[in-house]
């Protein structure tokens, strides 16, 4: 017992002050991308060719990024001959709609909070059932890490529960393989209404790197209605938590 207490003292207090203090992102972190239209060569398509998931498109002078497809692999920055594409250290990426994930020259619309009855019900207590549907265990791991003492998800009233019957919603990861489609549908059906669906990662939003494989469904949107999109491959834990807290109106 004394050993346990001594270890406890040594380990110290480790919970981050997020969201009051911003998280420290690694120097090489690739966050929300942007294209400098002044440097972008109109007829050049090198970045579009290099993208493994077709996340880039061009209309007029600049590139539009679909964060729902983007792996944040930065293959496009390597391909760009004029270094017009840059991945910033902006980790806040979550949106309420699929369309809002399209990044161009306009301001990025971060997720708005739930409103009315949903906000009243879930704003201070949200129980989620996680469903991994073809996830590679990276989105799962960085969702799970929110439960550790570092992030301490419980202080926001958010908890992952063992049964969909106890849940207010689902957090889905993975491209939803055909082999998981029925299980996801059943889990959704077993979750009492009103219920939320949060999708985490490029796979769950668009199929990610597995998009258009006949074995998968190109994400959860084809199977269940989605309330919050958190892009990334995988999203940083700060990105996921930021999204959850925005949805609940805890960050504005």
């Amino acid at each position: 017992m004394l050993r346990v207490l001594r270890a406890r003292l040594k380990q110290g207090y480790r919970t981050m002050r997020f969201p009051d203090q911003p998280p420290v992102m690694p120097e090489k972190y690739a966050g929300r991308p942007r294209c400098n239209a002044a440097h972008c060569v109109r007829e050049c398509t090198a970045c579009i060719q290099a993208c493994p998931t077709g996340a880039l498109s061009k209309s007029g002078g600049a590139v539009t990024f679909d964060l729902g497809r983007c792996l944040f692999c930065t293959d496009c920055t390597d391909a760009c001959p004029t270094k017009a594409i840059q991945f910033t250290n902006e980790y806040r990426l979550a949106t309420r709609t699929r369309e809002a994930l399209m990044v161009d020259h306009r301001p990025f619309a971060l997720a708005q909070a739930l409103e009315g009855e949903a906000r009243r019900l879930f704003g201070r207590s949200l129980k989620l059932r996680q469903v991994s549907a073809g996830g590679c265990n990276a989105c799962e791991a960085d969702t799970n890490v929110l439960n550790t003492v570092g992030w301490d998800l419980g202080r926001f009233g958010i908890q992952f529960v063992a049964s969909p019957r106890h849940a207010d919603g689902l957090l889905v990861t993975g491209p939803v393989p055909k082999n998981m489609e029925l299980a996801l549908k059943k889990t959704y059906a077993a979750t009492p209404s009103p219920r939320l669906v949060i999708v985490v990662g490029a796979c769950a939003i668009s199929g990610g790197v597995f998009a258009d494989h006949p074995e998968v469904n190109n994400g959860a949107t084809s199977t269940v209605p989605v309330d919050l999109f958190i892009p990334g491959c995988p999203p940083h834990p700060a990105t996921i938590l930021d999204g959850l807290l925005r949805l609940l109106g805890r960050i504005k």
Partner: protein
Amino acid sequence: MTTLPQLHNGQALPLRDIPELPLPEFRSQIVTRVRRGRRISSLFGLPDGGQIMLLAVLANDDQGMLELCRTRAQDRYPALTPDAPQAHWFEREIAEQWGIVPQGHPWLKPIRFHRCYDPGRDAWGRGPATPIEPCVTDYFRVEGEEIHDVAVGPVHAGIIEPGHFRFQCHGENVLHLEIELGYQHRGIERALMGIADSQCAPSSIRHPPSAIRNSPPGPRAVHYMETLAGDTTIGHATSYASILEALGNVTPAPRAQAIRAVALELERLANHTGDLGALAGDIGFLPTLSYCGRLRGDFLNLTALLCGNRFGRNLVRPGGVRFDLTGPVVTDLLTRLHATFEGVQNAVDLLWETPSVMSRFDGTGAVSQQDATQLGLVGPAARASGVNCDVRSDHPSGMYLSHDVPSVTLRTGDVAARAYVRWFEIQKSVEFINGVLRALPAGSVRQEVRPPAPEHVAVALTEGWRGEICHVAVTDDQGRLRHYKIVDPSFHNWFGLAMALRRQQISDFPLCNKSFNLSYCGHDL
């Protein structure tokens, strides 16, 4: 025993140098060698002129060599499994992918639940109209008045991947556990081979037109490697890079190899630390669970120092690595590695010092050395059962040629042994990283990779944190990837978990499962 063509880990050789053996000889070569201690690292089928070529990679761990042999099969062949049980899962895969029946296989069932790659064929005689549903299949049944079935999954209680577990129980005692996977199947190997859509492709699949091939490796290939098992991003990306380097006959610069090795060991540190915490959690010992959860994240953050991503995405590339290390980052790495390791030591020592923990670990889920050898287990699970195999020392490549990583072998094969092996490996990985970072070779970190040599076979092994990762590539006459085979360590080890559960209480399943901590997606591909 006649000799077979051999190569080192990370080498390529012309396909024509591997003689095509008659089926009976192919079979007897494998059976004889496995009896003498070789391991089956890979065994798979690939289309070859209207027939299926079977290619085997046998690991000779004593001499650090890999032996290859091949044959041709039409519709059926006598199964290897009755004489070499570690072929068990491979032969089920061959049957499912190519519709070839290994006759005499003791339990021939699908492993991933998809259609045969060759439309119209099916090892189980299912027609195109018969739906293939995951895990809808036969299960072992123990008959008796008080026997009951317990079915768990695919959706589990925690934040984990899906799989189905079927227990045959007598009271609390598990007589048999059968594990069925396939829910995570995303079609990665099929996509790498460029086989368009096995469900609607024309009958030309055995000669896929080059236009639909994803090769030479398309822009997605390296990303498949990094996401086929996301917790093993570095491990699989390293094997893939080694394959293309072998086929292009280039050796990455020493500095690049050093950075790869550091990343690989950081991946091991993060996962082993997380596993030790989770083992504590499964028996309700919360201090170690809490501390290791945080410390695991600290190791992931060290990987993010290398490349910006906590799982090592975008770091390892054919020809080297994408990011160099600067002096300040090396200093930062060393400082934080030391602090994190001290935290792990403090947290993990609690396990060994607490009798209530050890009484739950000791003797639980034991796998005998004989079973581990026969099943061909790899990685910490094998070493905990007295099987001394570790790619880093048996088949070293890159940085491991000049820097030893000692491995530990225990005998008891129980949860305690699998936990202790992890703790030992954490200590040795930290020593290794310290050694490599303090004497980081100078030079470039990335070079051009020449196009793959035509009609060659390349094999690359990497000791991932779960054990041996084996990639095999075969190129066509244009040097494109004709076939790409991935064996995640979980492929070898899932049956080990089933064996560990025999004669255990069903309530020990989470503990036993965590002590293996196998990959669902790495298996399902």
